[in-house]
């Protein structure tokens, strides 16, 4: 469908300057700008297709290697289509490394972090945006100031704290230090500010408590912001590497990225297995991306912090 939108507007009209589509006010992202000539049009496509090939090449190379027998890996020129599809690489990979466990850990951690972050951030954002209290601006500035602090500064004391609490190599240690976010609080506050205050007032007149206003009015009205934030938080947590690397040690507690890294250490040159592992690690995120592209892009750009 998305394709048809892009394609039809070119096909229907001739290259007439008067036919230039007007920007539709509701969807600024889809404003139309028209290439001036057929030659330019083709040149543009040539460049874009070449770029797409470059972008897709690593995926293809990964998939191809993951389905090769070892003897076909170390060949020149490289073989793209293996002479026999070696599905057993995947079975071997899963049997030598507990990928199921890595998935489970990553899922538990990313889901918990996302839920906790949205819960704590939305409560705090509600206070900052809708309630009046002494020290509000000062506290808010304090929150903003912590946005500047790189994770690496707090990493070592947090590591020491987790060991002190006896939580080293546990879910608590993986989840709690990343479950609070000044950025999420800030973004939700900005969104909450845009909701008319009359709604709160009307609800208060009807005897609703603040908690009820937060849960039954503000949260439902903030669906898009919360969805985008959830996507972003989940992805960031799913792909996080440094903290899970330092705070876990047993294979049972490793998340997917750290598990792959451990796999790399043990099966250093067995590229067919390593690539099968990479495919296993990347597949769910890619599937989610292709299905929910709109939300993923929105989530990543909302917070502006990239997938790092």
């Amino acid at each position, binding site marked *: 469908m998305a394709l048809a939108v892009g394609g039809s507007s070119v096909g229907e009209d001739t290259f007439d300057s008067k036919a230039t589509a007007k920007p539709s006010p509701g969807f600024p992202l889809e404003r139309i700008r028209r290439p001036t000539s057929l030659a330019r049009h083709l040149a543009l496509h040539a460049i874009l297709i070449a770029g797409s090939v470059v972008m897709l090449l690593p995926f293809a190379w990964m998939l191809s290697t993951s389905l090769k027998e070892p003897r076909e890996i170390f060949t020149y020129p490289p073989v793209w289509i293996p002479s026999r599809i070696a599905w057993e690489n995947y079975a071997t990979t899963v049997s030598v490394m507990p990928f199921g466990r890595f998935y489970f850990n990553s899922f538990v951690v990313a889901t918990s972090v996302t839920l906790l972050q949205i819960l*704590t951030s939305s409560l705090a954002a509600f*206070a900052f945006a809708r309630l009046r209290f002494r020290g509000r601006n000062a506290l808010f500035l304090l929150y903003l100031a912590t946005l500047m602090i*790189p*994770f690496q500064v707090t990493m070592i004391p947090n590591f020491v704290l987790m060991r002190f609490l006896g939580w080293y190599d546990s879910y608590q240690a993986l989840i*709690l230090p990343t479950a609070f976010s000044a950025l999420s*609080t800030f973004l939700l506050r900005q969104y909450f500010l845009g909701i008319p205050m009359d709604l709160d007032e009307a609800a208060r007149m009807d005897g609703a408590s603040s908690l009820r206003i937060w849960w039954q009015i503000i949260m439902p009205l903030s669906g898009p912001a919360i969805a985008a934030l959830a996507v972003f938080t989940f992805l960031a947590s799913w792909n996080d590497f440094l903290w899970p690397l330092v705070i876990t040690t047993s294979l049972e507690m490793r998340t997917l990225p750290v598990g792959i890294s451990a796999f790399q250490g043990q099966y250093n040159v067995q590229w067919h297995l390593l690539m099968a592992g990479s495919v296993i690690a990347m597949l769910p995120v890619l599937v989610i991306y292709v299905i929910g592209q709109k939300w993923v892009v929105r989530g990543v750009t909302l917070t502006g912090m990239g*997938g790092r």
Partner: protein
Amino acid sequence: MSRTVVRPITPTSLQDPTMSLPSRKPLSSKDENKTSEDFGELSRAVSETSEVYHRRWWARWRPDQQWEAYLFLLPSFAGFLIFVALPVVAALALSFVRWNLLSPPTFVGTANYAQLLTHDPIFRKALWNTAYFTVTIVPLQLVFGLALAVALNRAIRGVMLYRLIYFMPVVTTIVAVALVFQWMFNRNFGLFSAMIWRLAELTDLPISPPDWLSSTSWAKPAVVILTLWKNTGFTMVIYLAGLQAVPQELYDAAKVDGANAWQRFRRITVPMISPTTFFLLVIQMIGAFQLFSEPYVMTRTQSGPLQATLTIVYYIYQNAFEFGRMGKASAMAWVLFTLIFAFTFIQTRLQRRWVHYEAGE
């Protein structure tokens, strides 16, 4: 106004009789201007919102909301205190001790910092490498991202598919991707090497692929290539949003005046999206300063020159979790923090010279 009231003469009241707030410190006017300019946007945002509330329904004092608000803040604030605020202070304290986690820490004063800045050639190397990555990755990513955004900000067949493809690497797991690139950069059988061999065959030129990840001169470009591949899609999407906000009338008017495509790009697009460029510049610089996973995964298992891709964060990781030097690692973390803060600050000062904000905004 308050001068008629008899009150003790303090330095504050002498300097500025209108200041009746006791908390106001006697700042020199120069200092004050500086602060209010630098945090101008921030404080404006804060004061604007509070003004709105005052005008609306908040003229009345609501003591019932005082404690309620604190309760709403409590979970988030407690998390903050424990996992952000206290650790920052603790990291500063740790940076003045020597501690391997096993024996009790010993106070060493500023020795960790002194050692880092004067006696540690590896740290200097890590600084240099981080600087290299920053000055290569950030501008290249901006250029490629903008070029892609301009190309894809028009009605061409398959534009959504192109966007889907170019953005795809952004969502992938960096560790898995770095592993793929390590294999692509394999000296003998990697894809990049194969391409170079092929080129040598076709052109008869005496070229041969380098041993990418084991070579002191090629390991860094390999990391740069991976980072560009991974993050350019992100830059593109942010730039696309910026381009959508440029009014079409400007281009139409310029066309009427006979400006060619390059002139329109140079004189309209570039200045109009400079706020986006500034935003991307700042966050990508911060990201480049924190580079870790890419060099860690790509060069860790390589027998080659580990230090050719050693970044500050990588060195922090090694010191803390491989060498057991918690104090030194904390000192480095604080140096990193200071660097990030300083460069972000410099960027916000410099932006006035080149970032174009519309009057209406």
